[in-house]
C-alpha cells in the first residue's frame, strides 16, 4: 500500500518534472528540474531495493552531470536559451509518433506475461556489485574505464581553447 502511494507520488513528480524539463523555455530551470527528476529516479531505485544504484544516481547524475551541465550553461550566454521552435509538422509528427509509441509499448507490456521471481532481493548491493564488477562484468568494467578515460581526454581537448 505505502509502496504504491510512494510510487504514484514519485511517478507524478517524475512525469511532471520530465515534461517541465522538455517544455521549459529557460535552460537553467530545465537543468534544475532535471536535477529534481534525477532525484526522483533515485527514489525509484531505493523503492526497487537498488540502493547502490540509487546512491550512484545521486552521486553521478546530481553531483556530476547536473553540475557539468550547469557549467555548460553558464559558459554559454543567456540569449542562447531562447531558441527557435520546431516546425509545426515536426511537432505534430513528434507528438503523434511518441503517443503511438507509448501506447503501443504500454499495450505490449500489459499483454506480456512476465515471469517474476518471488525471491528476496539482495540486501548488500554494494558488495554484490563489487563482486560482479570484478567477476562477471570485469570486461565491460574495463571497457567503461577506457571509455571514461577517452571521454575525459576528449572533452578536455575539444573544449580547450586553442592556444595561439
Amino acid at each position, binding site marked *: 500500500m505505502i509502496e504504491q502511494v510512494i510510487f504514484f507520488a514519485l511517478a507524478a513528480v517524475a512525469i511532471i518534472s520530465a515534461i517541465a524539463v522538455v517544455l521549459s523555455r529557460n535552460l537553467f530551470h530545465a537543468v534544475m528540474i532535471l536535477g529534481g527528476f534525477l532525484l526522483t529516479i533515485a527514489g525509484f531505485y531505493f523503492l526497487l531495493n537498488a540502493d547502490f544504484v540509487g546512491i550512484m544516481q545521486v552521486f553521478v547524475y546530481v553531483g556530476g552531470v547536473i553540475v557539468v551541465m550547469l557549467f555548460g550553461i553558464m559558459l554559454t550566454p543567456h540569449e542562447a536559451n531562447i531558441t527557435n521552435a*520546431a516546425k509545426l509538422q*515536426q511537432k505534430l*509528427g*513528434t507528438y503523434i*509518433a*511518441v503517443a*503511438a*509509441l507509448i501506447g*503501443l*509499448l504500454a*499495450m*505490449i507490456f500489459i*499483454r*506480456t506475461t512476465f515471469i517474476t521471481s518471488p525471491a528476496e532481493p539482495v540486501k548488500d548491493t554494494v558488495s554484490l556489485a563489487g563482486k560482479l564488477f570484478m567477476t562477471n562484468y570485469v570486461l565491460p568494467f574495463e571497457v567503461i574505464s577506457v571509455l571514461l578515460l577517452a571521454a575525459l581526454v576528449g572533452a578536455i581537448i575539444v573544449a580547450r581553447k586553442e592556444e595561439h
Partner: protein
Amino acid sequence: MNYLSIILLLPVLSFLVLVVFGKKWGEKSAYVSIGAMVVSFALSIYALLFVMGGGHTEITFTWASIGSFKLTFGLLLDALSAMMLVVVTIVSLLVQIFSFGYMHGDKRIGWFYACLSMFTASMLLLVYSPNYVQIYMAWEGVGVFSYLLIGFWFEKRSASDAAKKAFMVTRFGDLGFGVGLVLLYIVAGTLDMDKVFAMHLPEATAALIAILFFCGAVGKSAQFPLHVWLPDAMEGPTPVSALIHSATMVAAGVYLVARSYPLFEMGPVSLEVVAIIGTITAFMAATIALTATDIKKVLAYSTISQLGYMMMGLGVGAYAAGVFHLMTHAFFKPLLFLGAGSVIHAVHSQEIFDMGGLGKKMKITSITFLIGGLALAGIPPFAGFWSKDEILAGAFASGHITIFIFGLLTVLLTAFYTFRLIFIVFFGKPRGHHGDHAHESPAVMSMPLIILGFFALTAGLIGSPFAQNAFQGFIAHGHEAEAPNYMVMGASCIIALIGIGFAYMKYMTNVLPSNVISKDNFFYKLLVNKYYMDEFYYYALIVPTHAVARAALAFDQKVVDGAVNGVAWVSMQFGKGLRHIQTGYVQNYALYMVIGLVVLLIWSIKILGLF
C-alpha cells in the same frame, strides 16, 4: 637533291625561318625571302631551258600507302609546269621586291614575307603536281595563305570579312573538286594524271568529273557565279593582290583545266560548259568594271574578265591560246596592280575620282601603267593583244559565233574601262587634294614595274606570228597552232581602238553626251551593284542558311535541350520532393526513426501477432 625540289624547298625554308625569326628581324626578313626567291627563279630559268631543250623530268615517291592505294608525291617538269614555274617565281620575286617598299614600316612584315614565301611554295607544289591529290593539297595550301594574306590587316573588319568570304566561296568550289576527285578515284582507280589521261573513260563520266573539277576552278579562278570573292579580296595589301589575285592563285583554276585538258577532251560537253562560263564571266566582269570607281576593284574585275577569257579559250579548244593568255596576263596584270599600288602608296586613296593628273608626278608609274593598260586592252604589239587575239581566233575557228561576238564586245569594254581608268588617274587635272604630295615611288618599287613593263611589252611576241607561234608549239604538243587569222586580228584591234576612243571622248573631252552613262540609268545601277550578285547570294544562300540554322537552333534548344532539361527537370522535381525528407536536421531523421519504430511495432503486433 634535285634542283627542282630546291626550287620548292627554298620558299618553305624561308617560311620556316621567318615564322621563327620574322618578328625579331622585322624588315630584314625580306632579304631572306627575296634571296630564296632569287635562287628559285634562277633555277626555274634553268628548268625552263632544260625543258626547252626537250627535257622532261618526273620524280615521284610514295608518301603514304593505304591498302592498295599508294599516295605518291612528285615533281613533274614539263612544258606547262616549266612555264608556270618561271611565271610564278618571277612574279613572286618582283612582287616581293615591290613589297619591300610598299610594306615599309609595317610591324608584321616578317609574317607577311613568311606568308608570301609559303604561298609561293604552295603554288610551286601545285604546279609540280603529277597527281590530283597533290594538286588538291597544294590547292588548299594556296587557299589558306590567300586567306591569311587577304586578312593580313585583320584589324580592319572589312579585311577579315573579305578573307573569310574568299575562303568560304572558294571552299564552295573546292567541294565540287573534292567530289570530282573521289569520283575519279572510283572510276579510274588512280589519281595519277598520266594514268588517268591514258585511260578511255566513258564520255559522260569524264564530262561529269571534268565539270566537277571545273567547279573547283570556278571557285579558285573567280568564274561566274563564284567570282564575288575576288573584288572583296582587294582588301589585302596591293602586292598580295598583284601576286595572288592576278598572276598565280587565280590562274591555278586555269592551270587545273589546262593540266586536265585530256580529261576535258574525253568529255567534250565539259569544254562547252567551260567556254560558256568563261564567256559569261568575261563579259559580265567587263561590264561591272565600267562603273567601278576603286582603282583596285576595276583591276579586280578586269582580272575576272581576263580569267574568263582564258577559260573561254580553253573551252573553245584553243588550249595553247588560253595558256598563252595566262602567261601574258601574269605579266601585265601584276604590272597594273603594282602600278596601282604605287599610285595608292603615293596618294593614300584607292578612289579614282580622288586622283587625276598623276602622269606628270609619277612618270615611271604612269608609263608602265600605260604599257600594262595597252597590253590589257589588246593593242598590238603589247603582250595582251597576241594572246587575246589567239583566243578570239580560236573561238571564231571553232564556230562558236556567239562566244566570238561576246568576246569582241568584251574587247571593246576592256579597252574602254582600261583607258577610263588611265585617263582619270593619270591625265587631266587633279581632283581633290589626295594627289598633292604624290611623287614617284622609290626604286625598289619602280624597278619591278619597269621589269614587268618590259615583259608586258615583249612577252606576247614569243607567241606571235612573228615568232612562228613558238610558245604555242612549245606548250601544246599535238595542239597545232591555228593559222593566224588576220581578219580577227584586225577586227579586235579596231574594236579596242574604238573603245579607247570612247573613253577619250567621255573622259578627256566632253564630246560624248553625259546622258549616255547616266547615273539613274537602269543598267548603270545594275552594274554598280555588280548584277546584285552579292545580294543574290545573301538572299539565296545566307538567308536560307540562317533560317536553317535558326531552325536547328530552335530544335536544339527546344527539343534536344528540352529533352535534356526535361529529364533534369523531372529529376529536380523528384529531388525537390525528396528534399522535404532530407532536411539536414537530425531531429527530422530521428523522427523518421521513431515513426519507423512505431510502424515496426504495429507490424509485429498486427501482422506477426507477437504480442
